[in-house]
């Protein structure tokens, strides 16, 4: 480890604010990019699933109606 203590790691020899701001911003951007991409995929899959279920139920009720005629 380059730094002697955890305090030193945070301080970064008085550049701490800048280093951690840069890393923080990067981490945030990567995190949000990941969540946003994955979220969109899951939402789309769920929406398609719901549509499929609705269609299935629609078929079933149409079948029922067909039986009564």
């Amino acid at each position, binding site marked *: *480890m380059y730094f002697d203590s955890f305090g030193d790691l945070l301080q970064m*020899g008085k*550049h701490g604010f*800048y*280093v951690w701001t*840069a890393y923080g911003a990067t981490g945030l951007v*990567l995190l949000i990019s*990941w969540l946003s991409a994955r979220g969109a995929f899951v939402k*789309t899959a769920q929406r398609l699933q719901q549509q499929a279920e609705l269609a299935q139920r629609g078929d079933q009720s149409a079948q029922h109606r067909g039986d009564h005629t």
Partner: protein
Amino acid sequence: MLSASFKRLWHKLGSPRWFFALTESWVKVAGWSALVLLVWGTIWGLGFAPADYQQGNSFRIMYVHVPAAMLAQSLYIGMGVAGFIGLVWRMKLTDVAISACLPLGMVITALALFSGSVWGRPTWGSWWEWDGRTVSTLVLFFLYVGIYALREAIADQELRARASALIAMVGTINIPIIKYSVEWWNTLHQPASFGLTQKPAMPSEMWLPLLVMVLGFYAFAGFVVLVRMRTEILNREMGARWVRDWVQARSER
């Protein structure tokens, strides 16, 4: 023999259904490698790499700034290449690729500008300097915004695809021209300022973590782009039989 199997792969990549099936495992590989590489690279770069003689610890910002800057450019060139392939081979998936690269590219370029600015303040004294690299990155951001604005303005999918492909290609051709012109401009207007290129060669303890971070960033980009492409494919191919089968298989899992 090799060319025949390559042709088959090329053909498969052009079909949304096969692309979707093919990339299911790729996404997992990309995601996990990105995680491992980024964590490893960050810990190494922040905690274990030696500090720079002149810059001190602020130079550690390089480990997140340089990969972002590289990725920003690569994603745009990726859009240009996709546009070219799309116009020549009429592959619809290339527009899906462009739509997937665009948001990530914009955000990564903005991040590169931000981290570069934060790096500049303790190192060279100012939040912003107009030099070759800052101007090039700024122009790259405008190139991204241009394509974004263009896509927002065209409602028809086919026409949007063709227009984006055209502008992405022209922009990609422009990138080296801009780099060269701006570097030339910079040598006139700036006294020799020290940058990474002018220092003595970096020792391996310093650039090895950078390599890991660059690989990590690219793996991450691959992951995000593939996920977005798969989402877009589901949206575009909603009515297809294979999509319905996939949805059903997924709900049964």
